[in-house]
């Protein structure tokens, strides 16, 4: 199955889901945040997974996206939804570019820690300057409903559908990017910056481009997170913990794969929910909920460590192995033996 066909199939299933089932818990508590986090992780994966630039500032960029969208809807009434999304992503991308400048000089943990400057500075600035929150007395903003073509995305399913559409479109574009010459350039500077420079990859341009595109996606993810999911924007919601969460998603899901962002997000969203629901279901009601939650935290931490140990390439690789095992015939038709490759898009790397 080619990657694009797979994407279409999953999208069709996801889009058809509300026809079958419409309970709001599924959409409002699981799928919508899952989509928003997946998109953020996708953005971070382009930067960290593909281009090798570790960032701990993702949640700051989500915040920038969210605040941009809020101010755009507020200050330019009637701005179409598509424009809001594009502009919010664009503003985030521009700021991401600035915070990407140190990457030209720093690497590894030095770069990672320097992105924390972005994290703390953005949080401070959004909190400090009342303009960003329309001088709201409490600084916590209630996000207005997004509208397009006279339709208000208000019900859980509508907000899910909107998120799905945005995420699918951007994922398709990110997928195309990852297969393009520019996508190869990202990997080149990650794997061997010197060699990349020698063969003519512009390291400056490529790194900044990685920050630009990554921030764009994360910014849009921030809009979805605040407008489609929480429907409130508060700077405290975009803390370092969220940045870590997004980083976890790509490391556990699979670095430098598109599907890793989704698998990882599913893991990170569903694991705590699953454990918490399971605990609530299995244990007697009198059971101390504090003890339960702390135990869950221990379990969650242990599972993360365990997955890191047993699966170096993330759940994406694990899934791929299981898939191959399930379909032994197909794996034989890997194009190793083919003398000439079919057109580039499909063959540069056969899977998402």
């Amino acid at each position: 199955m080619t990657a694009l066909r797979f994407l279409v199939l999953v999208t069709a299933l996801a889009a058809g889901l509300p026809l079958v089932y419409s309970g709001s818990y599924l959409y409002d508590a699981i799928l919508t945040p899952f989509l928003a986090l997946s998109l953020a992780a996708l953005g971070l994966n382009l930067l960290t997974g593909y281009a090798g630039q570790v960032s701990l500032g993702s949640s700051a960029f989500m915040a920038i996206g969210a605040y941009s969208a809020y101010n755009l809807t507020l200050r330019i009434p009637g701005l179409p939804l598509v424009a809001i999304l594009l502009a919010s992503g664009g503003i985030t991308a521009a700021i991401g570019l600035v915070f990407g400048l140190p990457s030209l000089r720093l690497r590894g943990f030095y770069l990672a820690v320097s992105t924390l400057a972005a994290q703390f500075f953005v949080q401070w600035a959004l909190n400090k300057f009342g303009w960003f929150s329309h001088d709201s007395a409490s600084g916590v903003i209630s996000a207005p409903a997004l509208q397009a073509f006279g339709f208000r995305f208000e019900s859980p399913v509508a907000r899910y559908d909107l998120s799905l559409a945005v995420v699918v479109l951007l994922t398709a574009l990110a997928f195309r990017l990852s297969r393009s010459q520019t996508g190869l350039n990202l990997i080149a500077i990650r794997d061997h910056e010197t060699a990349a420079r020698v063969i003519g990859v512009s390291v400056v341009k490529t790194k900044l481009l990685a920050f630009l595109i990554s921030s764009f996606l994360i910014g849009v993810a921030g809009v979805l997170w605040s407008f489609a999911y929480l429907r409130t924007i508060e700077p405290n919601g975009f803390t370092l913990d969220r940045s870590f969460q997004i980083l976890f998603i790509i490391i556990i899901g699979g670095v430098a794969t598109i599907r890793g962002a989704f698998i990882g997000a599913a893991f990170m969203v569903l694991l705590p929910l699953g454990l918490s629901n399971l605990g609530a279901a299995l244990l007697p009601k009198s059971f101390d909920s504090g003890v339960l939650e702390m135990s869950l935290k221990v379990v969650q931490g242990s599972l993360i460590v365990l997955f890191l140990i047993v699966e170096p390439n993330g759940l994406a690789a694990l899934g791929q192995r299981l898939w191959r095992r399930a379909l032994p015939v197909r794996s034989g038709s890997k194009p190793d033996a083919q003398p000439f490759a079919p057109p580039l898009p499909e063959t540069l790397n056969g899977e998402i």
Partner: protein
Amino acid sequence: MMEELRFLIEVLVGGLLSGVMYSLVAIGFVLIYKTSGVLNFAQGSMILFAALTVVSLLERGVPMALAIAVSLVGMIVIGMAIERTVLRPLVNRTPITLFMATLGVSYVIEGAAQLLWGAQVHGLDLGIDDSPLEIQGVLVSSFDLVAAAIAATMVAVLSAFFRLTRTGLAFRAVADDPFAALAVGLRLPAIWATVWATSGIVALVAGLLWGARLGVQFSLSMVVLKALPVLVLGGFDSVAGAIVGGLAIGAAEKLSEVYLGPLVGGGIESWFAYAVALAFLLIRPTGLFGRKPVERV
């Protein structure tokens, strides 16, 4: 004029003393980074665990010395356990994977600490007087002075350990070149275990001093955020850098908050330290004392 100068000195001294406290946390990071290349984010939760253990034992009527001894043993065990169960299976993996693993570990330790001792907030009294001290009209915290002295003693003991003992020499050999160390027959796992145990001890000292300053509670683990800019400034792999970096960050942070803060509305401490570190890095990409990786092509 005199008044202003005295105030400036007060701020500076306060900043330097705070800086010592940052260094204390940063050293725990450096020890581990130097030998195994891991940025151990679980350091914060280890600090919490150590302090929580001591304070909970104290509240149950255990004498101070015994409580510290028990916690010490606990921290050594935890340090070695992390090395054995988490880091060793992950050897040769990317630094970012190791970092994420220590984040996972910090969840486990935080959960376990509260499971064991509860989520309550405690006061920790080390019996160190904290009335202000006036030296030449300049106000100095006596607690911070004592804390700085303790931190300095710890650094001295650690240095002596690494300079004078066999294990210490082995540690330095490993830090210099793991492959060479392996080649001459040093047992890496044993050294790693020692280093992790040592970082457990450092966490205990940091936990006690910070615990006395903040109270022992969940947010104690957040002191690591104060240590990160110190690490960047001083270099992840330099103990001396952690100390000098701590002092520099402490002073810069306080001076900026007092003199620069009012211009932009205050509260800039949270990011200013990072900005200082970052600005410095642009001049020296591996910090004050950090080593530049050599690339062979």
